[in-house]
């Protein structure tokens, strides 16, 4: 038996240890993050899957624990991402302004994850929820931009406070902060309000439309190793909140008969669909690979929300599995880009090219990650998207199906862009000779994540069986699984079979290739130029405005949401200035005037 409390305390303590050791030598602090996060992940996974997590609390005040499959699902997955990413920390720690603080906050935010997912008390959950927010908030400015942290905090705060308000409403209904009691007790109009608040919270956390503007800013500017944590792990807190709202609360809303779906759920699905489309369109036009991946996270967040909002077992299963596959894929992709960023000093596609020549392993990691992200077999993303398609089609949601497929095909476009512009193409002269493959310690997590991408694609049932437990816990029927097959609503999928077929195809192609005459190797500059003499690599590399023809169609409409928030900000400032203008003068008579007005208001109301 392993006590969760002990684990939490160890995690917190190791955070402070990381700070102290980080003061001695910054790399020591980073190594503590590896040890600590690996320890937390492996204990959670080992004791969790053997059902031997102990929930007794003896030291911490107020904190109570419970182990649910749902919480364990999230906790294990998120700590896994933390553990994998932590291997990058020692290689990046030298760049940070406050290395000790980085190591400490990295571990503390992970400790918060344990608290959020293993408690049965809303207040404790909220405590750790906010704890994660402010610890991670201070990690972001260690990267490129301070503004990023501000917008991260602003949207997180909106999400947190919406959640808090909902928690208090549920507490009033249930009389206690118990999570299960609270969710069960809410009903009537209050249920609708709580539902909306929780959805706002989920959207803000997941970065779904229209609460998404922080996502590219934060992900794009966070320190390289922290971006995968944000994208793969922390935004998934929003999915957790969404599950509470969409599955556990059933507000009495009008049911759309044709769709067999309540209006509330349908509206959420519509916004999720908008997130998919908007995230895809924005990702297509990014030049910074990290921002591109950030918008892709927004789009995938939309998939997750959409899947949950459909309310069917297969949708739920698809949503949960998409959380896993997206976390693994985006984690690997961000890490690959981080490795490139470290070796070259930039993540802008227009400044890079031909990185594959020197970083082939990183390239392969990225390739596998994007295959999964685009939902192409034999990687995990295909399975989860397949499940989501099943759920969408089962309900016959034509418009949402269009959005879903738009996101899916659109993902081919945006994931290919870094592939072509950053990894492939001409090798930029400034990197020739100096660029090296990432160090081994960075390759380890990237390779492990790639392996996981493959495993989730070939043997999804290992994971889906556990997800079935989660679904049953949520009160739904499990998805029918064979030894290797998954039974959908309109077909069966056998991922292993597809993989074998793919393997055979590749073997045949390889045999054909190897039997034929050997090719002559030529350089990249030795290409067809239609008779022109092109002498420099820059001129022979197509990377700027990659999708210009399609971008042209919507480039005027990309900033509406940002503009809205900007003008909201200005409105607040204006209001402040107006008040200042009317009340804050150096003339005491103005104050007297206001006093008279107020007295007048009283007299006019009551006495005269």
């Amino acid at each position, binding site marked *: 038996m392993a006590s969760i409390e002990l684990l939490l305390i160890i995690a917190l303590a190791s955070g402070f240890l990381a700070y102290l050791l980080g003061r001695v030598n910054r790399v020591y602090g980073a190594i503590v993050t590896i040890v600590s996060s690996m320890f937390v992940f492996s204990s959670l996974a080992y004791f969790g899957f053997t059902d031997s997590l102990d929930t007794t609390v003896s030291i911490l*005040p*107020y904190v109570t624990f419970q182990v649910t499959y749902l919480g364990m699902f999230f906790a294990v997955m998120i700590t896994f991402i933390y553990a994998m990413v932590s291997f990058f920390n020692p290689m990046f720690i030298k760049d940070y*302004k*406050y290395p000790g603080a980085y190591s400490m906050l990295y571990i503390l935010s992970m400790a918060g994850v344990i608290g959020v997912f293993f408690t049965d008390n809303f*207040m404790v959950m909220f*405590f*750790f929820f*906010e*704890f994660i*927010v*402010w610890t991670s*908030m201070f990690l972001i*400015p260690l990267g490129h931009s*301070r503004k990023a*942290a*501000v917008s991260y*905090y*602003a949207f997180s*705060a*909106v999400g947190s*406070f919406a959640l*808090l*308000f909902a928690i*208090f*409403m549920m*507490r*009033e209904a249930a009389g206690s902060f118990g999570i299960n009691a609270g969710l069960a007790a809410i009903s009537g109009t209050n249920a609708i309000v709580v539902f909306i608040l929780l959805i706002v919270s989920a959207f803000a956390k997941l970065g779904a439309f229209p609460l998404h503007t922080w996502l590219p800013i934060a992900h794009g500017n966070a320190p390289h190793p922290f971006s995968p944590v944000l994208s793969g792990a922390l935004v998934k807190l929003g999915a957790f909140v969404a599950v509470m709202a969409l599955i556990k609360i059933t507000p009495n809303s009008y049911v759309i008969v044709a769709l067999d779906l309540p209006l509330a759920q349908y509206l959420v699905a519509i916004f999720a669909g908008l997130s998919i489309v908007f995230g895809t369109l924005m990702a297509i036009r990014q030049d910074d690979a990290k921002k591109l991946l950030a918008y892709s996270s927004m789009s995938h967040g939309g998939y997750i929300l959409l899947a949950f909002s459909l309310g069917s077992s297969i949708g739920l299963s698809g949503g949960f599995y998409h959380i896993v596959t997206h976390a693994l894929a985006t984690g690997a992709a961000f890490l690959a880009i981080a490795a490139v960023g470290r070796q070259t000093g930039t993540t802008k596609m227009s400044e890079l090219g031909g990185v594959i020549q020197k970083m082939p392993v990183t390239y392969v990691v990225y390739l596998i990650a994007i295959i999964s992200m685009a939902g192409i077999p034999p990687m995990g993303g295909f399975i989860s998207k397949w499940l989501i398609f099943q759920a969408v089609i089962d309900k016959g949601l034509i418009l949402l199906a269009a959005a879903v497929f738009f996101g899916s095909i659109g993902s081919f476009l945006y994931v290919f862009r870094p592939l072509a512009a950053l990894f492939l193409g001409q090798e930029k002269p400034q990197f020739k000779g100096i660029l090296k493959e990432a160090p081994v310690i960075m390759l380890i997590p990237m390779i492990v994540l790639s392996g996981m991408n493959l495993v989730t694609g070939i043997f999804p049932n290992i994971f889906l069986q556990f997800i079935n437990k989660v679904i049953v816990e949520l009160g739904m029927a499990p998805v029918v699984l064979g030894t290797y097959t998954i039974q959908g609503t309109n077909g069966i999928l056998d991922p292993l079979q597809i993989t074998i077929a793919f393997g055979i195809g590749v073997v045949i192609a390889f045999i054909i290739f190897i039997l034929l005459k050997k090719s002559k190797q030529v350089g990249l500059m030795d290409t067809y130029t239609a008779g022109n003499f092109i002498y420099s690599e820059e001129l022979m590399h197509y990377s700027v405005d990659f999708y210009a023809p399609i971008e042209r169609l919507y480039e005027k409409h990309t900033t509406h949401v940002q503009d809205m928030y900007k003008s909201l900000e200005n409105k*607040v*400032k*204006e*209001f*402040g*200035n107006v*008040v*200042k203008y*009317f*009340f*804050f*003068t*150096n*003339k*005491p008579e*103005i*104050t*007297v005037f*206001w*006093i008279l007005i*107020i*007295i007048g*208001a*009283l*007299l006019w*109301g*009551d*006495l005269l």
Partner: protein
Amino acid sequence: MSAILLIVIPLLAAFLSILVKKYSANILLVVSFASVVLLNYIPLEVITIGGFAAPYGINLILDQYSLIALYAVNVLFFLVVAINCAKFKKLSSILLVALAGLNGMILTGDLFNLFVFMEVSGIAAYLMTTTNQKPLATFNYLVQGTVGSSLYLLGLILLYAMFGTLNMQDMAFQISSSGYHIAVTAFPFLLMFIGFGVEAKLLPFNSWVQGILGSSNRLTGPMIASVYAAAIGFVLGRLLTELFVFEGTLLLIVTAILGFSIVAGEAMAFGAKKVREILLFSSIAQAALVALVFLSGFTGLAALLLIANTAGKLILFLITNTATDQLGNDDISTLQGLFVNNKVVGVSFTVAVLNVLGLPMFFGFVLKMNILLEFFQTDHLLWPAVILIVSVVEGIYFIRLLLKLWFKESDLPQVEFEFTLKYVVVVVAALLILFGVYTAPVEQAADDLTAIQYIEGGNL
């Protein structure tokens, strides 16, 4: 030992310090420390002055509530003085008078006596703020303060005419038993509320704040924003809980004033470009929030919130004004990167800010959650919504400020923080964390304070 010593000793010391100017700073330090120590030995009691019993004579009330208030004010006062006494030797006598006035305000059970102490401490404050070197602002403060206290006095006179008593308990008793229509007392109450509103920084009676705090120095900033704010807040709390009966239109007006102060304060801070302006506008909002919580009847929580806020403001103003004194101005751009080489100070500042924002692990979180809980339990859903929404705004500008102060690549501002200051801010910050994690005594204290019926005078 009697509570009266808390007023008498500083007053006597003030005279003494005029006689021995050379040692005035030492006297100030010793006396302010002594009054903190003294608090431990004074029994809770009601002291009658001059031998006349309560309704006719003046009495001092030392109950649980005023004890906490005295602790807060005296400790904060001591900390401010300890850091500043060497530099502001000339002000020693005035500061001692101020201490006497503040202690008197908290202790007194007599409404007219309260006016006297208010004036005493007010005059001390006007004099203190002359060190800001902004005569116009000080003059403005003086005028507004005078207007405020006149309105208070006017209201009091009306009440005296109606009920024939000046004693707080007696007045409350008379009002509740007289059966007067609520509208009759509304007018004097409003006048008194406005009178206090000037000192308590409530909009729209607080235009002096910008001039005073916006150009404050190391002494006046923490003194006005922290020590005075604590004392006034506690007294206002006592009046709101014990004396004032706000109903009908009056309640609406008062609530509107408080709500407007909260919202407008945060909005103004949001647009501010100077560090001290951010802090002063945010303290307007906080003062109004404290008053609102008092008004809603959550006395204990309001008192603790007041302590948390004023303690936080002490750190913020001390650090900001020290930096401003050395750098010449307080534009955010000037102070940017301040903490890069002053990490200890920076961490304390950060803790104070996170405390104000009510983030977990800090004292502010515990209080905020409990206040929201109380509001929900009394079915007030509007206030939690307002508080949470302005919290987002508050968070944005404070985090923006923090990040500016922590990050700058080159050309860092050179500021020296002396050991005493560091020591003080670290200890206060540590306490904010301690009570954020170890919440049992906080909740106990809040419950105790709310439960006390100190009005009857018997529950001492």
